[in-house]
């Protein structure tokens, strides 16, 4: 009876539905809803750029204003995906330039984007507003200059953690004087200097600038100048936080920070000279977000800061904070939602700081709103994990990295199966989990049985046999992404759970025991999966089927095998019938 209800009304109702999962559900109700929905969908999210082709997307959604794409698998962050693997944005921009003249927003993660593509973006979309390049690469300052010069209404330019080739040349001056629309600029990943005068002028004519993240090359002496021009900032990333000890510099900086009444988030802090830390104390009471993960300051200095931040919700810090600092955190920051503790010296065998499992236990006790944890440490115990689990059943993301692979419970020398089992048992809303330490197949049995909301699981140096993998694949109902390295998982579990793989976005297995023959067999059995074998040893064709593959990346797709692979990546069973 859908036709008796005016389309315009339905469209209006749909405009309130923004989550893409909800949108997808709406489109499945009936054919007329599918049609209405596809014409009014404005934002699309594609979690794997190879799962679908630009052509298919554009055919279905003709009126898109915002595109979000992800390319390489997550383990690319840790250099496990060789250069040249793929994730190119160019095919997308070529078609979108033609099909979406009103496109406003592009957000990319782990993709390769060239200067040519950037220039195409800058010239194809009259109303282009937002460009976010997260962990991307392949472009240089020239591409940024094109964006600056041509995007008249640019609101947001965020280069977070991308790798930009810094040729000489200043790109900031390419923003025309008439450009006053900038609200967010994140250039923290740039290695070379920017023209300071161009930066100041840009900031001065951008009254709506809320987020400014400088790069390391912007010296501390110049920070107060910038702050004076932009007292309305909500998020600030400093440059290098060091200078010669000068009292006048400290006073200037303190005064500048004091004028920023809206400041809620701080980051940057490379090369910190502790003398200058008090400059921003006036802001601390308002801070909700603090990223000190580049600040090599010791525990007393860190503690001094965080004890002044009662409203802190997100904290990233180095393990210099130590257990004492985390104790202080648990007492002072009752609003804490997310904690990330990074290792200061990950490649040294012995601990260089007094940070143990106890710090995390304290935080789990004191911070009742804690949901998300990323914690690097050198020792862990089942009892600590169990305590954490019982304290914080509201955890949604738990990533623990014990630096030594296969480290057991340091007190009992047993595997950490029970500890992680407690985590998945108590934290019923857990969506993301990263394991480490000594683990047997038992932990996977716990995970398979209990972690029903788990969407992403990362496994390294764990398990005893295929049984472990089988537990996960057969038990975790919500699993979307599974990434595994250096585990004794072979063909059996994989081949016993082939249909599971189509319900997931992707599976990554490297340095495991999956054979080439199994990959071929899997690909024949499941034509809607791309089974990609990555092998830098060369010459896959002459290998026997029993040979183990170096790296395996399996993902579901409606676009068929991709055509842009380098020589060391092979899709098994390329059947031309499935090409788009």
């Amino acid at each position, binding site marked *: 009876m859908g036709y008796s209800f005016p389309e315009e009304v339905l469209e209006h109702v749909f405009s309130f539905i923004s989550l893409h999962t909800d949108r997808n559900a709406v489109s499945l109700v009936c054919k007329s809803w599918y049609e209405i929905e596809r014409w009014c969908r404005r934002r699309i999210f594609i979690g794997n750029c190879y799962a679908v082709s630009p052509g298919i997307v554009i055919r279905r959604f003709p009126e898109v204003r915002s595109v979000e794409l992800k390319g390489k698998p997550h*383990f690319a962050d*840790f*250099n496990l995906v*060789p*250069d040249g693997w793929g994730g190119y944005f160019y095919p997308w921009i070529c078609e979108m330039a033609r099909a979406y003249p009103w496109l406003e927003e592009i957000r990319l993660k782990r993709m390769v984007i060239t200067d040519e593509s950037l220039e195409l973006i800058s010239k194809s979309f009259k109303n282009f507003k937002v460009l976010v390049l997260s962990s991307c690469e392949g472009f240089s300052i020239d591409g940024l200059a094109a964006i600056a010069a041509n995007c008249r209404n640019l609101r947001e330019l965020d280069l977070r*953690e991308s790798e930009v080739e810094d040729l000489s040349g200043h790109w900031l001056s390419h923003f025309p004087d008439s450009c006053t629309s900038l609200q967010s600029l994140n250039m923290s990943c740039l*290695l070379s200097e920017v023209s300071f005068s161009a930066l100041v002028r840009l900031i001065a004519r951008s009254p709506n600038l809320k987020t400014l993240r400088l790069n390391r090359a912007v*010296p501390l002496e110049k920070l107060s100048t910038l702050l004076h021009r932009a007292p309305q900032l909500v998020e600030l990333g400093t440059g290098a936080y*060091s*200078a010669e*000890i000068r009292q006048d510099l400290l006073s200037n900086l303190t005064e500048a920070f004091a004028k920023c009444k809206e400041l809620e988030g701080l980051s940057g802090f*490379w*090369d910190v*000279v502790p003398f200058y830390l008090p400059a921003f104390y006036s802001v601390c009471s308002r801070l909700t977000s603090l990223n000190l993960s580049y600040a*090599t300051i010791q525990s007393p200095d860190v503690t001094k800061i965080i004890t002044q931040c009662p409203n802190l919700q997100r904290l990233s810090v180095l393990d210099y904070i130590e257990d004492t600092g985390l104790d202080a955190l648990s007492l002072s920051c009752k609003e804490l939602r997310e904690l990330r503790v*990074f*290792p*200061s*010296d*990950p*490649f*040294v*065998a*012995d601990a260089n700081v007094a940070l143990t499992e106890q710090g995390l236990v304290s935080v789990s006790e004191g911070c009742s709103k804690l949901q998300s944890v990323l914690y*690097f440490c*050198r020792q862990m115990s089942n009892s600590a994990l169990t305590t954490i689990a019982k304290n914080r059943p509201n955890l949604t993301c738990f990533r623990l*990295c014990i630096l030594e*692979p296969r*480290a057991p419970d340091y007190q009992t*020398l047993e595997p950490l199966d029970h500890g992680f089992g407690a985590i998945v048992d108590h934290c019923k809303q857990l969506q993301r989990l990263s394991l480490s330490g000594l683990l047997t197949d038992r932990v996977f*049995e716990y995970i398979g*049985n209990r972690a029903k909301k788990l969407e992403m699981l990362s496994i390294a140096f764990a398990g*005893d046999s*295929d*049984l472990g993998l089988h537990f996960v694949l*057969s*038990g975790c109902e919500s699993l979307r992404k599974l990434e595994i390295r*250096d585990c*004794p998982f*072979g*063909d*059996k579990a994989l*081949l016993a759970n*082939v249909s599971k793989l189509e319900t997931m976005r992707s599976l990554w297995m490297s*340095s495991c*025991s999956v*054979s080439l023959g199994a990959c071929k*067999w899997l690909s024949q*059995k499941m034509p809607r999966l791309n089974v990609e074998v990555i*092998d830098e*040893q*060369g*010459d896959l064709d*002459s290998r*026997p089927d*029993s*040979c*183990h593959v*170096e790296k395996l990346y399996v993902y579901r797709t409606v676009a068929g095998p991709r055509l842009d692979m380098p020589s*060391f990546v092979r899709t098994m069973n390329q059947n031309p019938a499935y090409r788009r």
Partner: protein
Amino acid sequence: MPPPLLGIDGDDHGHVSLMTSASTMESIFPKNAGLTERNYLGLSDSSSVDSSAVSGISDVKRSNLNLKATELRLGLPGSQSPERDPDADLVSAESLDEKPLFPLLPSKDGICSGSQKTFVSGNKRGFSDVNNKVSSCAQTTMINDAASKVVSQDQTHATFGNNNKVNTSNPPAAKAQVVGWPPVRSFRKNILATNAKTNDEVDGKPGPTALFVKVSMDGAPYLRKVDLRSYTTYQQLSSALEKMFSCFTLGQCGSQGSQSLSESKLRDLLHGSEYVLTYEDKDGDWMLVGDVPWDLFIGSCKRLKIMKGSDAIGLAPRAMEKSKNRN
């Protein structure tokens, strides 16, 4: 309760219908085989051949022939790789002679024999390749890994963590680096590395930033990039580069590593190298890597190139002269 996995109780004809149709797979994957307990640190079982490597032997023989010609080693043309003892099984860290694999010209920062074990010298590959049954160098790596990591490899980890007393005779040992472990992003590693260096400097001076240079190789279809500041010696650099570019040179390495393969491979290593590592300096001249002290090198290196030994012969005299002029 998950559905039972076939093969648990020795019953391979389990309820999963997929497997019953794949009878050919049965012959390739022998029942209950291949899942021997693997010690990835190579400690107890230095000859742990993957028992499912049923058809590896012929490939081993085939790859023997190609190895010498196609192997990537970095060193001066005409130089010889040092001898290595393939049976150095579980020798203690002190007695293992950490000879450089790539005989670069001696430089002031003392490449090899320090007790500072920031890497496992003499290895062509890192930890993850120990697990990679395809890598024919797995055995070599395991042996050397075992020797230098004897401290942290204590099977019971009895002295793990803060109470690790075994290594007190040496300064805190740096670990051999497993690729991609711990999972820390490279820009984060760079920051920490440079910060660690600046701790020695006067407070207040900002540290150096990362230093990416392009690395090209004759015949390779694309470039790679490396951050010179993430290494502290030539050894680390050449190991990393070798790992990166091995795919272009090693032909058919395709079998699970067996002891005999690695021994013959070691012998092949002794017969000189095919490729050398060169760099373009600030003056635009191409020089052999290894001429100058490390710090001087990273100060003047603009890009790297792995070229065939024959092409690089002419470089040697100029390089020596230049460094003489500098010194």
